[in-house]
């Protein structure tokens, strides 16, 4: 088993709103190993994007990290000063977002933007940075890098813009790439191109990738391991194969059976009754208990701890105890 690169320990992020305090992330814990393609999957409002932002200490205004540790290379990122964090961002941890058009500045050429990033984080001269940028464009399989370098974002397609975002993210040799729904805004044929590019970059450059997504199919196609988030917590973590084919938590089981079957059998889908709790009014006990088909008395009172049911496999559910099923 390879060493841990990033570990999130009991992270909680809270937002103060007019309606009250929203517990967006509520005791989230998981770990990403070196060189790993790790998936953080969940439905909207489960806290997955806020967790991604918290890792690089970019929680939006109104929100604050209230407890927990984010350990990257034996360093707690929460304890870092903002100047130190600026060095970490880009140089060590980089991020790619869902909508590349919103992430790029429309008034500068993409070449200008990537050169600025490289020069901000390294000692490179303007010409050296330009060469490096062109090499990055080539690495992400952009055709005709010279022309792209001089292009403005609006002149490029969504798929090409996302390739540029990936090139920018990796231009300073980051070890961890956080990709928040990187293919959600793209068409399926382009999505397939970007996913295979990410897998390819992981192979060639050995970066670890934390993929944040709502799409279990995308996880199945790319990730080594996966954590499933619900109401700001991780309910299950394990290898992609274990989690998707032998799901332990009733929520994961429900999510998988709600998907239209890929074999196309036409029967009623099993939906999960009710909807996701809203964070304003956290549920007592296990956050999933009001929707859980296997709810027990203890679930309503006490939140389950994260239980290791096998090596590298954790489930937060009262149905289990250390080492296996209760």
């Amino acid at each position, binding site marked *: 088993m390879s060493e841990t690169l990033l570990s999130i320990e009991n992270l909680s992020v809270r937002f103060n709103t007019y309606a009250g305090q929203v517990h967006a992330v509520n005791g989230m814990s998981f770990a990403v190993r070196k060189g790993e393609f790790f998936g953080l999957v969940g439905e909207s409002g489960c806290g997955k994007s806020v967790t991604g932002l918290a890792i690089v200490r970019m929680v939006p205004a109104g929100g604050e990290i209230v407890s927990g540790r984010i350990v990257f290379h034996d360093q707690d990122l929460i304890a870092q000063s903002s100047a130190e964090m600026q060095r970490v961002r880009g140089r060590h941890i980089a991020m790619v977002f869902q909508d590349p058009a919103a992430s790029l500045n429309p008034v500068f050429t993409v070449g200008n933007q990537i050169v600025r990033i490289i020069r901000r984080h390294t000692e490179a001269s303007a010409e050296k940075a330009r060469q490096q940028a062109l090499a990055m464009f080539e690495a992400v399989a952009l055709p005709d890098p010279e022309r792209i370098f001089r292009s403005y974002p609006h002149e490029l397609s969504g798929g090409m813009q996302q390739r540029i975002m990936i090139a920018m993210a990796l231009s300073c040799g980051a070890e961890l790439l956080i990709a928040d729904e990187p293919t959600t805004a793209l068409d399926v044929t382009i999505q397939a191109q970007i996913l295979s590019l990410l897998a390819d970059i992981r192979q060639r450059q050995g970066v670890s990738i934390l993929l944040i997504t709502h799409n279990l199919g995308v996880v199945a196609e790319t990730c080594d391991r996966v954590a499933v988030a619900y109401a700001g917590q991780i309910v299950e973590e394990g290898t992609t194969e274990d989690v998707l084919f032998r799901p332990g938590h009733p929520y994961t089981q429900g999510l998988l059976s709600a998907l239209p079957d890929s074999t196309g059998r036409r029967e009623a889908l099993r*939906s999960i009754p009710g909807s996701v709790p809203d964070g304003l009014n956290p549920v007592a006990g296990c956050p999933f208990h009001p929707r859980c088909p296997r709810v027990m008395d203890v679930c309503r009172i006490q939140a389950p701890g994260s239980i290791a049911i096998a090596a590298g496999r954790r489930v937060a559910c009262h149905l289990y105890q250390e080492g296996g099923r209760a």
Partner: protein
Amino acid sequence: MSVDVKPLLEVSGLSVHFSTRRGLFAPVRRVRAVDNVSFVIRRQETLGVVGESGCGKTTLGRAILHLIHPTAGQVLLEGEDILQLHGNALRERRRHMQIVFQNPYSSFDPRFNVLNSVGEPLRTHAHLRQPDLVRRVTEVLESCGMPGEILYRYPHEFSGGQMQRIAVARALVLNPKFLVLDEPTSALDVSVQAQILNLLEQLQAQLELTFLFISHDLSVVRHISDRIAVMYLGRVVELARTEELFTSALHPYTQALLASAPIIDLARRRERVILPGNVPNPADPPTGCAFHPRCPACREGCSQQAPELIDTGGGHLVACHQCQA
């Protein structure tokens, strides 16, 4: 399923062209958003339409309802060409054909409560008195799984899934025969998507509805459709029964689309076909077969002449020079 011999909807040669120009003095260019599309939908059938963004699937749905005026073609609803109808005659036919949009928050007026929004079609079409209107709205909301107490609440008070149930209720309030569903579950989470898909199927059986289901999500279309039309750059490139399309797709674009869709099957990870390039600009489509620059099976001839949509047997239609040879 009881299949009436006469189809409910016949679309033939439907085209929607838009004129655009890049600058004030630049030449006008024609965008063929929908180009010569023909198909029939039988009673109580669901025809799925899939394709990537810009392929014209939404424009097709709107043109069929005459929400956009098509450039050419015919849309026969029970034998009557609705494109020839105007004014009151068109409004009368509209009762029978309704639409559900992708984003329920933008297709509802935030200042209207549920009763006003869902009841509005009844006011314009049925001229019901208030007590009857309230009764009908309550009834249709309940059939869509929403309690009757919500009549005086507003869109922002509901979740996306609840809003989409209300949108379906609004579409059904006039007892239509035909529904265009334009990406009705794309904005929803999977657990809620399943609720809406189940609801649609249940209502279809109960109320004998006919659906045109537009989506970019192959697994959703596969689940709900009897037949599927695949669109690329304004044209239907393949049309077949659902299982046939998924087991023996003929068009190279359909094959690539099926291979690109992420599915939960670890064994498949290594053997995927990745289609190069981007969807071309519809204002400047490639010559001949619009798919030829990205096509793995492209040969000479493909760039010169556009292939016709031809039946290869048993109602499996394909528009490809290589498949037809």
